[in-house]
């Protein structure tokens, strides 16, 4: 198939999925028994009379039918207006922008760290297959795969913040300090534990995948023949193993954006790290519908971008797809 056509098809699919996510999440949120007016007013609910209630409802368009509301909301979205967050009293897009910088730093660090470490662990395990180090790596991966991410965060807090006192217990910046006075070192100190927690969890998939792929490659006919030609040791593994498995591993890492985001939600909550994840939890718990919807759409886009990048890499790097393009 021609490359542009392939992209067009992908794009249409993405657009249709995104639209469906919008509909689905809008009507789910609409069904919620959580009273959006109470969410807006917060603790002052007792002092709000029925007239004020109606006014607020009118202001948010809550007096209309769901379909009308959806039309209203979605046409605003198309214009780039995601509404105003009820808890932050700011445009949703601004909230997301502010918070995303924090989350992006966290996820990027964890993404790179877990990718590199996971890849290395996978290679070591595969090359030393069935040795004690392979067993150790497998044990680590299988154990971690069965461990809730937030519990790892709690453990690290117990050890490094409470027990040893090396690192602060929470918050992206020290409490009670003005934003301008926060130093880079403060930020880094508050960043280390969340990033490590997220990386520890992220290592598992890459490591197990890399291990299996490399074992498959090492048992392949072409490695057999390479050995018959006298290739051996690290050069053999590099030329035929690592070069061939790096691409699938990278693809896997890109396709794992969804899990990365989910992990970030939990880790940010444990460490009171002021990112998107915490905003999602807040929005969910306190019924901030516009923010929740904005975050669902944003996280979906985030996953899409990951998948798209994964596809792109294959198209650009794999010689076999280049050939398809030429035909």
């Amino acid at each position, binding site marked *: 198939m021609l490359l542009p056509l392939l992209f067009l098809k992908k794009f249409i699919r993405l657009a249709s*999925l995104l639209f469906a996510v919008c509909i689905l*999440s809008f009507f*789910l949120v609409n069904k919620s028994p959580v009273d959006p007016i109470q969410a807006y007013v917060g603790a002052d609910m007792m002092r709000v009379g029925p007239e004020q209630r109606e006014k607020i409802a009118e202001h948010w368009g809550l007096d209309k039918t769901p379909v009308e509301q959806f039309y209203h909301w979605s046409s605003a979205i198309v214009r780039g207006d995601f509404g105003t967050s009820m808890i932050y009293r700011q445009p949703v897009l601004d909230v997301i922008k502010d918070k995303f910088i924090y989350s992006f730093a966290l996820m990027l660090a964890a993404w790179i760290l877990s990718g590199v470490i996971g890849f290395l662990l996978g290679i070591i395990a595969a090359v030393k297959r069935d040795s004690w180090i392979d067993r150790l790596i497998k044990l680590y991966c299988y154990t971690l795969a069965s461990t809730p991410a937030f519990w790892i965060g709690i453990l690290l807090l117990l050890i490094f913040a409470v027990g040893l006192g090396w690192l602060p217990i929470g918050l992206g910046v020290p409490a009670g300090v003005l934003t301008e006075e926060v130093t880079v070192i403060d930020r880094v100190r508050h960043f280390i534990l969340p990033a490590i927690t997220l990386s520890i969890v992220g290592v598992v998939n890459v490591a197990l995948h890399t291990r299996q792929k490399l074992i498959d490659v090492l048992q392949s006919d072409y490695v057999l023949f390479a050995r018959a030609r006298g290739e051996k040791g690290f050069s053999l593994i590099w030329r035929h193993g690592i070069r061939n498995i790096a691409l699938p591993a990278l693809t896997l890492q890109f396709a794992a954006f969804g899990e990365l985001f989910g992990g970030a939600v939990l880790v940010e909550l444990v460490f009171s790290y002021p990112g998107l994840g915490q905003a999602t939890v807040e929005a969910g718990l306190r019924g901030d519908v516009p923010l929740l919807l904005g975050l*669902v759409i944003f996280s979906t886009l985030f996953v899409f971008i990951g998948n798209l990048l994964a596809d792109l890499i294959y198209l650009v790097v794999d010689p076999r797809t280049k050939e398809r393009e030429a035909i």
Partner: protein
Amino acid sequence: MSSMMKMVKFSIQPFISLNGRQRSFMTLVIVSLLLLCVILGGLVLSNERIATDLGNRNLGPSLAHPFGTDWLGRDMLTRTLKGLTLSIGVGLTAAAASVTIALILGMLAATMGKVVDSIISWLVDLFLSVPHLVMLMLISFALGGGIKGVVIGLALTHWPSLTRVIRAEVMQLRSAEYVEVSKRLGKSRWFIGRKHLFPHVAPQLMVGLFLLFPHAILHEAAITFIGMGLSPHQPAIGIILSESMRYLSTEMWWLAIFPGLSLLLVVRSFDIIGEHLRSRLDPHRAHD
């Protein structure tokens, strides 16, 4: 010293001399016993042990309270076991529902023609495109939290991957000769599905159930930890761990360590059973 070494060596020997399959069978037995103990413990232990007992507050681990007690004097071991039992119940219900969805959609996708197939594949993509946890939060939010919200949320988010597996399996079976013959003989789709396809897919479903379960239970713990899952009045690991966060700086480490570790063991146990079943079913891995 040397006689000690000999003894150790001697006692390890029988286990090592088992071959791979025997060892994996032993692991299976041990793991199943462990799970049985957890569930029995959760069901049998009396609620009195988790009643407020202000005389026994904030106790560290001891013989009477192996996991310690919390700030209300509740026995943490009992709370953990009851929490785990509840989680296993929730996880199994949700996983079973997910497997059912996967079975129906997978069979439909494979047998009802191209249009249905592409619709279902689109649905699979749809549910994979929102991060799992975010989708769970959304569904839980829509249903107002609680057990119902969690079970439905888990059931609705865990079916996509298994659906693909079942679809592929049924596709392969469908072209098998005996199914073709059955079709020519004018048997109904329902008959073919029930008599020929389902028996082959059933083992996959069993494996699917055990492999989905760990995900389900971890997600249940996560959503409850966030505060959008089971209610704080129910004994749940997510609740226990979320409470433990408040006492982190008081050095009451047992509040977080033991419940978390127990959850880890239970999840891993189900994983082991699932892996074992799969390797038994998959001839490619049978000789590992």
